[in-house]
């Protein structure tokens, strides 16, 4: 097979005496939707935090399209092509829905501080393009009608969708979704699944997602990794995972 978009080898992190993640090997290939599941406290979010350099890993390497990103900082990793959402939603609460998405495009459209103060045509052109792209994203996530309200006054489900839209605005190669359906009702979840598939095709990105909603995971993920106590318990297709005895045991308890 070709070079994976994301290739993680022997990844591990210790918090003091606690080993939260250990010896994790994981690949995500282009155009794939991959699930990362596991019981509470298994270390899933911690993996995301290492990938986006919120945490420094204690061991192991992380490669994006063959490029070592294991020593970059959060900003550089985003520029390299990883965008994410957060389990506990982190929006720019005081900014409008529209501006949340626009902020995601800051590194894609360059105009200088000189252009800013003197309102050059360059600024105008960039801002128009930013506006157009942001509108397009908002429409995909059914947020266009609330584009002018404060992000913090959106309902919960809409806030989750806005986070995805904002992440996509950075034009990533790999999108990390941390429990995107948490707090959504079944109908919203169903819609979200369609949207996730849609953006994968439209923007041709790879997606790695953490989710507790098993119907969602089994439905849209092409491959699944199962984490338990920070180590890999199993990996495979949804069918393989569904019938894996170790996984069933871990989820149901012994």
């Amino acid at each position, binding site marked *: 097979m070709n070079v994976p978009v994301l290739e993680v080898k022997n990844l591990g992190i210790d918090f003091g005496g606690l080993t939260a993640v250990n010896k994790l090997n994981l690949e995500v290939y282009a155009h794939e939707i991959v699930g990362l599941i596991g019981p509470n406290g298994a270390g899933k979010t911690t993996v995301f935090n290492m990938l986006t350099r*919120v945490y420094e890993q204690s061991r192991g390497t992380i490669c994006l399209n063959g490029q070592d990103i294991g020593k970059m900082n959060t900003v550089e990793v985003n520029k390299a092509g990883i*965008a994410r959402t957060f389990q506990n939603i*982190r929006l*720019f609460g*005081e900014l409008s829905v529209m*501006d949340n998405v626009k902020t995601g495009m800051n590194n894609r459209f360059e*105009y200088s501080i000189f252009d*800013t103060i003197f309102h050059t045509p360059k600024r105008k052109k960039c*801002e128009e393009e930013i506006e157009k792209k942001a509108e397009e994203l908002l429409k995909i996530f059914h947020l266009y009608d609330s584009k002018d309200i404060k992000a913090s006054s959106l309902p919960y489900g809409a806030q989750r969708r806005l986070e995805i839209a904002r992440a996509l605005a950075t034009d990533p190669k790999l999108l990390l979704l941390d429990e995107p359906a948490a707090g959504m009702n079944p109908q919203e979840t169903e819609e979200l699944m369609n949207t996730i598939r849609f953006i994968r095709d439209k923007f041709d990105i790879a997606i790695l997602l953490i989710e507790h909603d098993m119907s969602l995971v089994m439905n849209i993920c092409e491959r699944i990794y199962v984490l338990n106590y920070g180590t890999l318990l199993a990996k495979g297709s949804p069918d393989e995972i569904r019938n894996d005895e170790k996984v069933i045991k871990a989820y149901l308890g012994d």
Partner: protein
Amino acid sequence: MKNFMELLFGKKNRSRTISFLMVIVAYVVIEALMHGIRMSRLFTSLLVPTCCYIILGLSLNLVVGFSGELSLGHAGFMAVGAFTAVVASGLLSSSISNAILRLIVAVLCGSIVSGLFGLVISVPVLKLSGDYLAIVTLAFGQIIKSLITNIYLGFDSNGMHFSFVNNNLSLNNGKMLLSGPMGATDTAKIANFTSGFVLILIALFIIYSLIDSKYGRAIMSARDNRIAAESIGVDISKTKTLAFVTSAILAGASGALYALNYSTLQPAKFDFNTSILVLVYVVFGGLGNINGTIVATTVLYVLPEMLRSLQDYRMLIYAIVLIVVMQLTNSAKLKQYVEKLSKKLFKKGVAE
């Protein structure tokens, strides 16, 4: 030009239009009054300082309101701007005879030097996260004040003379520019109300241009959620530095204007109290609320001066005004009401 008009009066931003209209109307009314009736000395003497404090308030709001950092030493930047402008204006008095041109050059010098100080302070501090900026600016304000209190600077036909120790510079038929604790003692008063008005418009223009741009969105995103901002590629320390330096430049301009409105000016004027006073204006006007800053600064600065004749009742009235202003600018319900009202007014205005 079209861009400028759109920025000033575009449909999208009502609060922006209100800012400019408010300032322009106030200027026109005051100018008309001054031509019509004789205003009291007290009133006219307050005009330029009020403009200066409005600019300082706007500048501080950029840091505290929009960038979410605390500065406890903005009077320090005002001082840098002030005394730089005094020196520049003094040195240029013979080479640039046109007062307006000299005022512009002096204000530019004050802003630039103040901006440089802002850069030197903020670059190392804003690399760290936490409230270090508050501590460092607090120290900066004190240090700058002490520094200027100890500078003796004069010039004569032989050039500039400078000392940290005493005022005996043995000038040869020259002129003292800074005399230690006495500060500037013989400055040409070249600032006036109109220049203050223009400078407010420029400050508003710069601030609105900034906050409506990608840089402004970056600044506010870093304030609202640092980790999320980084996750979408916003360089936190760069954006915060940008906000802080812009703020220092504006504070320097306000100081320059202030200094050139008085023939004498002591460095002690720019002490911790001044920094806190302006912080109070900004907080009462509402963080990130530009119109609030303008109104609160005007009311809270002018009122105590106007009320001097009322003696004992002064502080009582002042306290009541503080509460009312805070309610007006920070309560969501009242804000909604004011917004509705302004919408109605605006619709009428358009229809007519």
